[in-house]
């Protein structure tokens, strides 16, 4: 006699494990993305662009204007990488059907692109430009709290005590990794309100994006939904942001046409693949384990980003990185060890 309940439990376990696996892929790929994401700032034409803008508008503004162009170009390669991905999966028909279903599906991905693109990414660069990289990283690490809270209030998503504890321990780990840098940055001098606003935008933007996208993912496929979200983000940068900066007198289009250098293109291809698949993994985890858990595990990107920079740039890690990394791993295990049958349905 076959034990149906044991088979059922095993099937639920597989769904939960797959969800956590996608969230972990997201964290690893996000961490790896920091390699091209960092290298590209030192390449032609961005060095020249930064120098030119900084000479007239200051370093903070130069960072933001350059960041908008880099983010727009990053979105181009992400969209191209996802065309290959969805083509292999045979999803083009589903993409058209989902895009046409604006009210139930694609409007949520359009909204997700606004919160995840101009709000969160721009906010993150504002925090970086006006305060510092460590402050921006810590601010962004807070996003799962917003995502989990919104998903709970709006969708009735179950957030168990164990899941909440895991999220907080991972955030504590991330703060330990970057904490020393934040104190140094805040002590360095006067910090503009633009930096704090940017930090707030990063923390809320990605959290809101998760909850909003999950509303669309209720009735849409994650690979397709994510692709539509990036096409919308690309349109925002190309149709609104870049022309606006050009009107304000910044030479964004002049430099955009100078990117055709082998190393610059190679870095954007690398960035597009890692960022695209990191985001696909993020979206794929939401319907399987929920927004709170998916974002909580994806938050391990802080640790993987530090590992990437240690491995590829030879940065010597401080002891805080080891303590923070250990906390991140503990937090993950707190979440992984949750009883899978509690997650039979993700919502109340």
């Amino acid at each position, binding site marked *: 006699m076959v034990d149906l309940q044991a088979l059922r439990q095993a099937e639920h376990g597989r769904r939960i494990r797959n969800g956590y696996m996608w969230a972990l892929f997201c964290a690893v790929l996000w961490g790896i993305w920091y390699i091209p994401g960092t290298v590209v700032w030192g390449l032609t034409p961005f060095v020249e662009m930064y120098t030119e803008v900084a000479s007239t508008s200051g370093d903070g503004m130069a960072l933001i204007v350059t960041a908008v162009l880099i983010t727009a170009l990053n979105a181009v390669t992400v969209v191209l990488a996802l065309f290959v991905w969805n083509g292999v999966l045979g999803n083009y028909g589903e993409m058209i059907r989902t895009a*046409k279903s*604006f009210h*139930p599906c694609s409007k949520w991905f359009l909204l997700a692109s606004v919160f995840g693109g101009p709000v969160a990414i721009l906010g993150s660069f504002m925090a970086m430009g006006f305060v510092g990289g460590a402050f921006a990283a810590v601010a962004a690490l807070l996003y799962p709290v917003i995502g989990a809270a919104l998903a709970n209030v709006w969708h009735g998503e179950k957030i168990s005590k164990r899941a909440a504890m895991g999220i907080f321990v991972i955030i504590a780990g991330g703060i330990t990794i970057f904490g020393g840098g934040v104190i140094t940055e805040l002590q360095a001098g006067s910090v503009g309100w633009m930096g704090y606003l940017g930090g707030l935008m990063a923390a809320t933007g990605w959290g809101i994006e998760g909850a909003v996208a999950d509303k669309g993912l209720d*009735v849409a496929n994650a690979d397709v939904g994510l692709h539509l979200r990036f096409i919308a983000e690309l349109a925002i940068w190309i149709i609104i942001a870049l022309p606006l900066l050009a009107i304000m007198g910044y030479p964004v289009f002049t430099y955009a046409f100078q990117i055709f250098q082998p190393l610059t293109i190679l870095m954007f291809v690398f960035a597009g693949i890692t960022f695209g698949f990191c985001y696909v993994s993020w979206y794929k985890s939401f319907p399987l384990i929920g927004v709170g858990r998916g974002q909580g595990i994806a938050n391990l990107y802080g640790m993987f980003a530090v590992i990437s920079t240690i491995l590829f740039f030879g940065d010597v890690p401080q002891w805080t990185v080891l303590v923070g990394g250990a906390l991140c791993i503990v937090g993950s295990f707190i979440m992984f060890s949750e009883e899978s049958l509690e997650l039979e349905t*993700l919502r109340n």
Partner: protein
Amino acid sequence: MSNLPRKIRLMEIMQDGNEYWNYDVIKQAMQDYGFQSDFSRDTLNMDLIELAAVAFIKEVDLKVDDEGVYKKGFLLHKYVITEAGKARLSDACMYAI
């Protein structure tokens, strides 16, 4: 041929509130979209699992596939649409092009 995204179509097939085995819903959806591969079949089953995870459909019965109607040896699920699923579906279909 359906113009609706897969998950919406799967719920639409079950909208009368009757109980359906997953293989019957999947078979109907495959005909609607002109799908033929095992990969498409498994993708549709994954869509059903995700719909059950967000409580838009609810599992009411189980059996092992002894005859190979879906995949021999696999667990088969019987589902019914929930009130939350019906509400999301009516919202979705009202506006779909």
